[in-house]
């Protein structure tokens, strides 16, 4: 298995001076092709920070983030944007669809931004929508969709164009359990088909869909299902 995403001793400090908050403390993390990794932790544990770093939306204070062999830190804004539309797919909790665009156009967005011809992009988008089971909604606007449908569109957008890293930030947060499981099923299927997936969630039931579950506490990986437990738990707690 080849690692699609690698975080090597990554730290991220928000703010400066007295108000500085260390969101991630030297975290090392990988996600390999065909693997779905869940990141669990309470709010403020740094799991969302981990995801924004992996997606190139934010830069680490120290350490390196590598996606498909490319060090995001060494890339400029433009190249990072290119990575986001060609290599990384993002799924957000509140879907983040653009309300002014139809489902198909939302899905086609990364392809169009990458300079593909609208017709080809639209066709690929329709395929992706078919794959997530809502091909018939291609011409609807997000405002006219249910949450589950909107999240399916978001997933279609995250996977369209053969992207191999899917980052999902509480993708089921706004959905009921049934619909949420459908969404996880989709993510899972995508990873089984060869993509690397990172799923940030605070619900164990959802994390259980992953091959590996990583527990984050205060910016530190404290536990990993299947691997040896880390001793630092109480030290980390007392050290604060």
């Amino acid at each position, binding site marked *: 298995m080849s690692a699609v995403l690698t975080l090597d001793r990554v730290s991220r400090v928000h703010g400066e001076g007295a108000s500085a908050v260390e969101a991630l403390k030297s975290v090392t993390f990988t996600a390999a092709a065909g693997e779905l990794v869940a990141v669990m932790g309470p709010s403020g544990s740094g799991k969302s920070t981990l995801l924004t770093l992996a997606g190139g939306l*934010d830069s680490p204070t120290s350490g390196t983030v590598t996606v498909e062999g490319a060090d995001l830190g060494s890339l400029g804004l433009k190249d990072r944007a290119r990575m986001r539309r060609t290599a990384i797919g993002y799924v*957000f909790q509140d879907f983040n669809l653009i309300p002014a665009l139809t489902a198909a*156009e939302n899905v086609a967005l990364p392809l169009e*931004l990458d300079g593909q011809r609208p017709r080809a992009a639209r066709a690929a988008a329709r395929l992706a929508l078919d794959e997530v089971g809502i091909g018939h909604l291609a011409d609807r606007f997000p405002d006219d969709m249910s949450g589950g449908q909107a999240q399916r569109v978001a997933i279609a957008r995250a996977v369209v164009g053969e992207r191999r890293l899917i980052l999902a930030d509480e993708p089921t947060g706004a959905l009921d359990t049934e619909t949420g499981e459908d969404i996880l099923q989709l993510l899972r299927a995508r990873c089984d088909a060869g993509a690397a997936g990172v799923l940030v969630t605070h619900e164990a039931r959802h994390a259980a869909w992953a091959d590996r579950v990583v527990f984050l506490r205060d910016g530190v990986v404290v536990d990993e299902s299947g691997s040896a437990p880390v001793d630092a738990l109480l030290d980390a707690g007392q050290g604060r």
Partner: protein
Amino acid sequence: MRGWRLPLRLAWRDALRSRARSALVLVMIALPVLGVTAATVLIATSNVSTVEGLDRELGDADALVAVREGVDEVAQAPNPDDGLDYDEDSGTALTPAQLAAALGDRPLTEVRQGWGMLRTDRGATDAQLTEVDLSDPLAARLVDLTDGRLPRAAGEVVVNQALADKGYDVGDPLRLRGQDSPESVVVGIAESSRVRSEPAVAGLVGSLGFETFDTSRTWLVGGGPMDWDEVLALNERGVSAYSRTVLEDPPPASEVPSEVEVYESSTDETALAIAALVVTMALLEVVLLAGPSFAVGARRQARTLALVAASGGTPAQARRVVLASAIVLGAVASVGGVLLGIALAAALLPLVQSFTSSWLGPFQVAWLPLIGVAGFGLVSAFLAAVVPAHLASRQDIVAVLGGRRGDRKPSLRSPLLGVVLLGVGIVGAVLGARPGGELLIAAAAIPAVLGMVLLVPVVLAVLGRLAGRLPLSLRFAVRDAARHRTRTVPAVAAVAATVTGVVALGISTSSDAAEARATYAPMLPAGAAIVSTLGGQDAEQVRTAIGREVPGAEPTDIRGVRDATEEQYLEVTVTAGSDDWLLSSSSSVLGSSLLVGDELPPLLLGVDEDERTSAARVLAAGGAVAFTDRGVRGDEVGVRVARSDGMTGEPIGRPVSATLPAVVIDVDPASTGPVAVLAPAAARQMDLEVTTVAVAITGARVTEEQEQAVTEVLAATASGQEMYVERGYRADGETLIIQLVLAGLGALLMLGGTLTATFLALSDARPDLATLSAVGASPRTRRGVAASYALVVGFVGAVLGAAVGFVPGMAVSRPLTTMGGETCVITGSGSCTPSGVQVGPFLDVPWLLILGIVVVLPLLTAAVVGLTARSRLPLVARLS
């Protein structure tokens, strides 16, 4: 008021929190208020009322009294300039001594005022002349000495700076143009209280030697207030008085003699209607420009409003929350606009002064109109918030609380109403497309524009549906514009209303210009010039001046019979067979209507070489050349020349006439040539005195500077002739300026509307932009989106506006360019027979202007917006 306290407090906090948006509204409303305020103050200041002008007329005196020769009783209005009634030759006027006696022990000093010609280094100039003893305390403040000293004796004068600029200086002799002007010398430079940029001279009585034009004499009178009773008493003795006290505190109308009753000029209804139209349009424009900000504000407050509604607030209370922000911002903008406007006016005063020929009045702030102006600002803010407030009050509470958009589906009613209003506007314009219908057309433009505003949402919705094929940024902008109708519609409508106005006015002014161009009749061949010499008095001077000022020109004398002198005028009748008139009208620019020569003079219009040749042949044979625009034919004409007294019209001497072999040449009806050209022999035979009547200038293009130079030189000649240069039709600067101002103002308003909408759209679209960034949009995508917004708003507005603007524009071009009735030809008997030539209507669409404003301007705005927009996309706005 109780129900408003909470909304007002909310509005105030909201205004402070969203500073950029508040600033936008403030600017939109404050700018027009500021402009109108400054204009109002400047106009009030530069308008010198009678009372304000008293010091300028009277100096330190209390009254200015006048007696007229042969008048022993007058009736006057409080201000004799408003009404003065007397019978000429009714009796004997008071002598100065009698007047002094009549005024009791009041001091008085004679003052004479008028205009005269002064020679300057280059030629001559008009100047205001004042004769008064400037050392008299009564006249003290009529001039303000800046250099030298005041005149102490006859023969000493002061001149003002304007005259000094023309070459006069202390010590120079004053060169008055007139037969027996006294010799005077300039002893000082002093500003006149009455004129500023025009030349003025003042000296002791007799120094300037001008005759008062209406045989009246005037005195400045001091010695304390002169009340109305005293004025009436003076009137009985034939003295009119311009009294400071009376003008400052006019008597009741009942005490004013009935024959000079001053009627209030009735308010001009047309002017009132036009003012109402202008105010309405301005209000509409401001409302539309400020509207988007309130729409966005209302949407930002949607959740608050939904919570208010959920906890039992009525729709009226929800409306108040939105309206309150209009009141807060409107009030601040209005008051601020008025105050800044006053400050601006004060700052602009020196500049305005430098452009006006008279002295400005005291700085004057007319509060009443300014309160109206401020009210306008407040009302426009309020109106701008009405629609957002209404929509906010009927939003879907459940949807908003659930985090969705709570806009109700737009009703079909408003577009239908829009169609109806547009129809009314078009019908009005069509009905107004007849002479005198301008006002109706202008009034009809308002429903048309309102109708268009109501139709904008439909257009946007249709565009949104058609946007599927557009590139991403544009598609995003169009769809987003269609989705946020409350924000986009007023902005688009503001642009559209602006463009409507620009297109309508553009079409009407350029049609006007087209009419002027089409009906322009040149008087001379293009590029030629002529100076008439009034009977050859100044022929030599004219030739010299031309030779000196216009190098390379060939002056040619045009000889003829002198048309008119001060004493008599010439009547030339040319007959051919039974036709006793050949030209429907005659007005010769060639110095005389009856020319004399061996060949046709130069500069004749509408005469070809063949005609010249045959004319030369007839003239050589001692015949005559006659001109006709009525198709009269004949090879023999009768020429009759009669003279009449210039004052009484009595014939002088016997008319002379002759029948001569002739050639009749067809000319244009609007021709400005002579009636006939006689052979010198024929003129001699008829015993006509032939002189050089004009000098034609050919062979060189006379520039405007040369023309001015020649004119100034000629002003100094006895007849003071001017030169006429034929430059063909020239759009008077006005049309061009109007079009430029239109384009400029249009561009400014369009830019305002477009930028507002774009700014608001971008701040609204932050989350969407963050999403774009997250899925990999490169930084410049934001620029693309910004430019697309600007393009959508500008372009849609411009196209709609241009389409609507064509209606009143084309309609109004008809009454503007159709001649009243038909042109007609005056027959010999003096009656009017229709010529059958219908002049106008003219329609000229200024395509360049329209292209500029519909295509270039939106593109330009989009480019500017695209280049100046921040390119960094918000990255994690939605993730935290």
